[in-house]
């Protein structure tokens, strides 16, 4: 048991899972409360276009995915507010367009894309130092945002119209938050991949909402549940030799079920 902690790759994986749980726990609380789960999933999938571009031009795919993620976040908001297109339809278009772009770029890139599946499904055991630094920066940004701008984030998410009347900078807050969603999911893509990363933004939060309906407590509990389930997933992944992203998702769901059963038993 203690042996695996001596592996550097495992230490990095633990650190990455911890950082991802912090940033995704915080941002996911916003995503779930404001009901922007689908928009977040759209951003994640469209950032795959950036991963393809990264392969094609030979730069770190996370960097190009960050650009794609933030631009598609703004694109979805902009098109649905100004373009007279409904938001869910806009998300569907961006999601498919981003994935299609990624597929074309990867097809055009000569040779085999070696760790493509780690971007699609996640492979926490392959995280690099630069991944850790980016993930730490995202966690710090998310923490900073939620502590310093707590009332702005809470009140604009709750009632945009009233926030406008109160002269709050609703557009600025909305665009900043959706950009932060994009950044957080993209830098943590190695944890669970484009396909599964949405779980870190939704399952711990939904579990937390079984226990409390207070936003600040949801944030804290989501981080805790995220840490517990990602650690558990990581160990399961290591010992059973299965992909980490999938085992983390299973751990999260098992945790949800356990908490739900406990509440059922207590009440």
């Amino acid at each position, binding site marked *: 048991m203690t042996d695996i902690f001596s592996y550097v790759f495992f230490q990095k994986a633990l650190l990455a899972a911890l950082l991802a749980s912090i940033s995704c726990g915080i941002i996911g609380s916003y995503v779930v409360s*404001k009901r922007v789960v689908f928009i977040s999933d759209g951003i994640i999938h469209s950032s795959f276009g950036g991963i393809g571009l990264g392969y094609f031009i030979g730069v770190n795919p996370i960097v190009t995915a960050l650009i794609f993620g933030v631009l598609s976040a703004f694109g979805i908001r902009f098109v649905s507010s100004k373009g007279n297109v409904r938001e869910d339809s806009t998300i569907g278009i961006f999601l498919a367009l981003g994935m299609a772009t990624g597929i074309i770029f990867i097809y055009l890139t000569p040779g085999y894309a070696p760790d493509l599946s780690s971007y699609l499904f996640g492979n926490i055991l392959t995280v690099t130092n630069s991944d850790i630094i980016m993930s730490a920066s995202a966690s710090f940004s998310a923490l900073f945002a939620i502590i310093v*701008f707590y*009332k702005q984030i809470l*009140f604009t998410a709750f009632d945009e119209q009233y926030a*406008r009347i109160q*002269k709050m900078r609703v557009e600025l807050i909305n665009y900043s938050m959706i950009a932060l969603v994009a950044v957080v999911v993209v830098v943590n893509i190695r944890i669970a991949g484009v396909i599964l990363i949405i779980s870190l933004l939704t399952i711990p939060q939904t579990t937390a909402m079984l226990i409390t309906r207070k*936003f600040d407590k949801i944030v804290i509990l989501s981080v805790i549940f995220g840490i517990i389930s990602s650690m558990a997933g990581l160990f399961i992944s290591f010992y059973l030799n299965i992909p980490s992203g999938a085992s983390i998702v299973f751990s999260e769901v098992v945790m949800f079920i356990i908490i739900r059963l406990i509440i059922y038993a207590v009440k």
Partner: protein
Amino acid sequence: MNEPILEIKNITAGYNGTRIIENINLTVYENDFLGIIGPNGGGKSTLLKVIVGLLKPEKGEVIFKKKSRFGYLPQFTLNDSKFPITVKNVVLSGLVSEKKVFQKFSQEDHDKAEKILNEFGLLQYKDSPFGELSGGQIQRTFLCRAIVSDPDILFLDEPTAFTDKDFSKNLFKTLLDINSDTTIIMVTHETGIISSYVKNIACINRTLHYHPGNEITEEIIDKFSCPVEIITHGKFPHRVLMMHKDGK
């Protein structure tokens, strides 16, 4: 004569190119209690949205004569609000415009919010999730949010919808109390309830007609299809006006 607090000049507005209100001119004076009445779809809420800045008018302007604090009670919609926010936090959100970006709410703000919740019988729910309140309690919480900042101008959009008689009584008692420092503009279609409290009436049906006091003639009613049947005004004798010809 009180000073004007708000001037509306030549406002034309609507949604997606469909004009709802046209060439509205209105001056509201300090400490007025103005009731805006009119038929459904006549543009009552649209005008209110333009005044508070939620809807950009096609043309015209809204001029506030001095820096004013707003309170706004939006038209009630039954939505499935599972948003994780406590009742007290909803009321505190009415104070956010007085706070600097990084400033936290003070003990005084919390006391203020609790005092007003107490006045409307909601203190016991202060830490409850907002989503668990009944329709009437939600409306009361929103009213608390609208008046917690001691606004200079209070806008109310159909405040008595979804509430019972007790609430209406309590509401109008509160409104009369604060009217000495607060200008109140209230949109409603329930003229029977408001008529004994408002000082002036404006009738809106695409265009607006201002009725100073309770001087309403049959001709005005015909022209603007105001849904006014009975006007009672404080200590003055009641006025009973004719039914509209189209029965509205």
